[in-house]
């Protein structure tokens, strides 16, 4: 029998078929979210001693799949900017695996800047991580788009008591009245100061009562712009808090609209003058590319969080201390509460195991104490043991108590709704940076940006409504 030869036309047809197959495979939507509907069996034992939370047995949380035999592999996405930070986080993950030998945790990491792209690309490829750190600004968007599992059934089924978290933490992790993530840590910035630079200028150290205006006055004495010695470094990174403590209204209550009223514009103008008239704060680009200006002793003060404890302990070659955020132009203090929302992906094939890890990292006193002791983050829960470890850590600087005492002034940054990332980082922050860059006045640059940003928020809200209808 004569064998049939493959003609050029047939070959091209086959190739096209293969390509179409690949395209179709690529067209497959991401894995459908699993739903949490199974009946709940609670078997945990919880003891509470005052504020102390001791968890001895993990609860069996609701899930969709029967328990597999042997260790289960789950994936967790995190961001980290240094190998040391990654290794320190792995110590806590290793502890979890030691306690839960039936779960093997694989950590996927990227830099903070590339984190959303990394996770979303993994999700598009059908490989969404089971457990995810979530950037606060993305909680609303990811929740509204069903990318996160609603944690409330798990919370109800286990020992987790939301009142055990520090104030503002759970709000930061929620959207539309539902808890989608839980905070691994709750943090905010504090005022770091270089004692040597204050001593050299003959100035008193900052205290709980120090205001922005005080620091400006002191800055005029301490700063020597010609030699790149300045009082203030990165206060613009915490502008939202200072806009609040000026008495200004930045957004409406629901976070669905930017307001940016006159006190906000006045505060931006004040910050513009700090750089371009008073010369106590670096102008944009002045200190770019030379590392951390506080660590390099170019700037006497900086606003940084507890996540910098171990970095400065290892690197700063000068005596330093911390105190609470300075009070704003309105004469009171506002603190933006940050933290690390941690959630379960709706595409997870092992949501029960993923929840176990989320609960361990965000609520278990062992993990919370370890992260405090290792100096990578402050605790998210009120457990005394964890806070004792935080204060006892060699990385915790002098004055940390001031910072803790000021926590009563803390509130969530914003009620981030879908579209906030584009509206904020794509429009409003660009305009704010232009004001600080002296490209125009706040009155000229901010109102058009507010209008554009509100358009984006409105469009995002419409998209979410359409998604709900679908």
């Amino acid at each position, binding site marked *: 029998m004569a064998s049939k030869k493959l003609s050029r036309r047939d070959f091209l047809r086959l190739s096209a078929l293969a*390509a179409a197959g690949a*395209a179709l495979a690529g067209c497959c939507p991401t894995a459908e979210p699993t739903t949490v509907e199974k009946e709940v069996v609670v078997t945990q034992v919880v003891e509470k001693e005052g504020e102390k939370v001791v968890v001895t047995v993990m609860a069996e949380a609701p899930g969709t799949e029967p328990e597999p035999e042997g260790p289960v592999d789950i994936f967790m996405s995190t961001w980290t900017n240094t190998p040391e930070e990654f290794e320190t986080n792995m110590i806590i993950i290793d502890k979890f695996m030691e306690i839960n030998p039936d779960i093997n945790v694989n950590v996927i990491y990227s830099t903070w800047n590339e984190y959303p792209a990394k996770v*979303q690309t993994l999700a598009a490829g059908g490989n969404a991580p089971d457990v995810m750190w979530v950037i606060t600004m993305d909680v609303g968007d990811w929740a509204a788009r069903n990318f996160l599992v609603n944690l409330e059934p798990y919370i109800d089924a286990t020992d987790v008591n939301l009142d055990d978290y520090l104030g503002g933490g759970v709000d930061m992790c929620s959207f539309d009245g539902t808890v989608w993530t839980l905070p691994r840590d709750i943090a905010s910035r504090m005022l770091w100061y270089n004692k040597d630079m204050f001593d050299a200028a003959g100035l008193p150290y900052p205290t709980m009562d120090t205001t922005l205006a005080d620091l400006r006055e002191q800055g005029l004495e301490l700063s020597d712009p010609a030699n790149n010695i300045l009082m203030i470094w990165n206060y613009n990174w915490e502008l939202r808090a200072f806009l609040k403590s000026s008495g200004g209204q930045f957004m409406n209550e629901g976070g669905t609209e930017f307001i940016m009223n006159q006190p906000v514009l006045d505060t931006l103008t004040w910050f513009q003058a700090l750089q371009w008239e008073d010369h106590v704060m670096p102008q944009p680009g002045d200190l770019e590319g030379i590392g951390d200006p506080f660590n390099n002793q170019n700037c006497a003060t900086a606003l940084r969080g507890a996540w910098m404890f171990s970095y400065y302990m290892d690197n700063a070659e000068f005596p330093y201390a911390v105190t609470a955020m300075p009070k704003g132009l309105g004469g009171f203090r506002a603190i933006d509460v940050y933290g690390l929302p941690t959630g379960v992906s709706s595409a997870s094939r092992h949501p029960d195991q993923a929840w176990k890890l989320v609960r361990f990292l965000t609520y278990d006193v062992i993990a919370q104490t370890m992260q405090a002791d290792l100096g990578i983050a402050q605790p998210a829960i009120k457990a005394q043991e964890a806070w004792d470890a935080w204060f006892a850590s060699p990385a915790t600087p002098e004055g940390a108590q001031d910072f803790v005492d000021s926590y009563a002034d803390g509130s969530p940054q914003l009620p981030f709704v879908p579209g906030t990332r584009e509206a904020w980082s794509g429009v409003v922050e660009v305009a704010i940076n232009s004001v600080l860059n002296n490209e125009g006045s706040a009155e000229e640059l901010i109102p058009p940006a507010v209008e554009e940003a509100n358009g984006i928020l409105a469009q995002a809200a419409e998209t979410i409504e359409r998604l709900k209808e679908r």
Partner: protein
Amino acid sequence: MRFEKSPATRLGKGFWRSRLARREALTAYAFISPWVIGFLLFTIGPMIFSLYISFTDWDIMTAPYFVGLENYREMFSIDLDWNAGGEPAPEGEALTFKDRWDAFWQPEDDKYWLSMWNTLYYTVLSVPLGFVISLAFAMLLNQRVRGLSTYRAIFTLPTILPLVASTLVFVWLLNPNFGLINAVIQGLGGPKMRFLSDAKLTKPSVILITLWTGVGNGMIIFLAGLQSIPEELYDSAAMDGAGRWARFRHITIPMLSPIIFFQITMGIIGSFQVFQQAYVLGFAGGTQSSLGGPANSLLFYVLLLYQRAFLWLQMGRASAMAWILFIIVVAVTLVQFKVLGSRVYYAAEG
């Protein structure tokens, strides 16, 4: 350019009827099939998928939703206010050209047009400059001087460095307080230049970085072209009294024309896709808002596409942008072929 017929074509249809010919053809297809299959699977397949996505609202996390031409409509919807030029200026102020233009030109997606403008600015300056400097260096290094190979190696070094590393070095070099370039400018009595934070200077700075990293590449190609020009042509022209400029104009340029055409074509295609330098410079600023540089002066087309796709959950709009870019690049390339293609001299054609 003429193509010779292959032996198989010359032999006509009868050739294909022979078993040997079919076997040969099949073998040839087998050999090229890894590339063809890879091309279909990993290039054409994703392109078709992205074309489909460009007609949808897709956030990556949920299923794509068909929206027809909406993504394209948003890009090109522009409200032109023809009466804006006649608006009276506020009392005591004069309307600037920018005021009048801003009032006249009101696109729905102004970021898209800003990114287009930034990219065009970059293309119009970086491609000709890169071309001229590469050619100039190639001609310098085509001379017979001592240590020529060392010079060539030095000029080529920047091209083998990763662009990210080179860009970070330039963040240092261009620093207003500590950078070497500013030190030289100020040493000569010039002002402090905020290369990376002044919106007027950011694009020229990126062009500078591109030239530093890219000129070596072009130079090597031009050098190869220069060395392939027969010396006799120059000798006979010199005997006929042609000066340096005449020899350059009438011998060097025509003989290099295929390379010039290639360089310009590839340069324009590459410049439309500028991304890395702006991305690195943006993140050197420390915040996501600085990704587009001061006042979005570095918001290039592909950077906006990246933001929309991966930061703002707008893969549909990003895919539409990608297809518009594809059409622009194809159109510009066709125009180049039409305008420049006929002026290219291929020595082999005689």
